[in-house]
């Protein structure tokens, strides 16, 4: 039996208060109240009294790993992690952006998260479809079990079956909607480059104006940069104000990487990201 959101929230408050009081961490990344119950916000607790403001409900979808890279190295941080968040943390540890010993991971086994924009349940259609954190120090609640195991890549079948011309038209239509607000890259826990390649002015990879070719360049290159790193949290698609289904492309790339290199992103701390790694016996078949 999974814990209710309220139970998890209470445990999260207690744990955060304890950690801040004992000085084990200086920052707790969790969720706080937004302008209404359906719109909670990421919340940064720094004082034990701040812990009372922490909330956790089905709309707390934001990936808190996003905020880790903002802190100077060595800051002791406790971060509340759902399944995808924990994978993002692992991936960040693999990429040496954060250190495991600086982090305390408060696992949140959450089932039934909802998209606050549409009210839809978030499942393997748009995310990795895991409900239990992969890595944690304290699990705040009971593990979720008994849910049907669905491959997060099932949703791709329909698009893979498409004729390539139709698929190009589909993506062109989607990318043409882009207004280049960069919410996708800013919401992404793995997009921490400064400056982003698209902001470079020499060479200029894409124009600043939202035209088809620049949009295509931006999105395709971003998918490439996230190959083998995207942990399929779906934040990019939820952040998008014009609803581009970026998760589909990320899923496809992740699927291919998993098939080619036999490693899913953000599952084990000791892994190396697949594209900064190689095996001498990688097959040339992958290039076909």
């Amino acid at each position: 039996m999974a814990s209710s959101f309220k139970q998890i929230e209470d445990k999260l408050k207690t744990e955060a208060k304890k950690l801040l009081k004992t000085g084990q961490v200086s920052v707790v990344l969790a969720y706080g109240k937004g302008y209404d119950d359906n719109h909670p916000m990421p919340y940064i607790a720094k004082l034990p009294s701040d812990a009372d403001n922490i909330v956790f409900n089905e709309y707390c979808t934001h990936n808190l790993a996003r905020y880790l890279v903002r802190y100077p190295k060595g800051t002791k941080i406790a971060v509340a992690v759902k399944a995808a968040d924990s994978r993002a943390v692992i991936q960040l540890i693999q990429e040496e952006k954060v250190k495991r010993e600086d982090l305390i991971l408060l696992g949140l086994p959450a089932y039934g998260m909802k998209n606050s924009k549409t009210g839809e349940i978030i499942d393997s259609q748009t995310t990795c479809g895991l409900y239990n954190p992969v890595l944690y120090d304290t699990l705040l609640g009971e593990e979720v079990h008994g849910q049907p195991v669905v491959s997060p890549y099932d949703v791709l079948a329909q698009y893979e079956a498409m004729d390539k011309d139709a698929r190009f038209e589909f993506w062109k239509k989607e990318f043409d909607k882009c207004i280049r607000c960069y919410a996708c890259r800013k919401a992404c826990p793995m997009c921490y480059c400064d400056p982003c390649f698209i902001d470079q002015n020499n060479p200029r990879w894409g124009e600043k104006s939202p035209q088809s070719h620049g949009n295509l360049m931006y999105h395709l290159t971003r998918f490439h940069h996230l190959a083998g790193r995207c942990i399929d949290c779906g934040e990019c698609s939820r952040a998008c104000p014009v609803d581009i289904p970026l998760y589909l492309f990320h899923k496809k790339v992740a699927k291919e990487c998993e098939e080619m290199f036999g490693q899913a992103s953000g599952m084990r701390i000791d892994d190396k990201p697949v594209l900064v790694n190689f095996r001498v016996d990688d097959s040339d078949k992958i290039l076909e």
Partner: protein
Amino acid sequence: MSFEPKILGIACNWCTYTGADLAGTTRLQYPQNLRVVRVMCSSRINPSFIFRAFQLGADGVLVGGCHPGDCHYNTGNLYARRRLAVTKKILEFSGIEPERFRVEWISASEGNRYAEVVTEFTEQVKQLGPQTKFKISR
């Protein structure tokens, strides 16, 4: 008039580019559709180069590197192999014909093979016709 594709070749300095030289000095005949850019290693190739080439009107892109294990920098082409494999999958899912992009390992001594690959690839791209999906209209 038959369609003459524009093909961008990106060749590693140590193997494929030298192989191309050999093909030239041995007077091998192969199509002239390929324009070669030399890079120091196949792992120097940024995937954006390939996207940009298609945007700027390339009908095909051919990448040439040393055979795995023969890299002048020991491991460069092993990274490149993985990276370019991903590039190919991305091109495919975005809807462009993946056959327009090809990676070949051609060593400095394989002038013959270089000519063969170029001939074959040019023919393949010719079959596919002009690339219009990524190309920016003027």
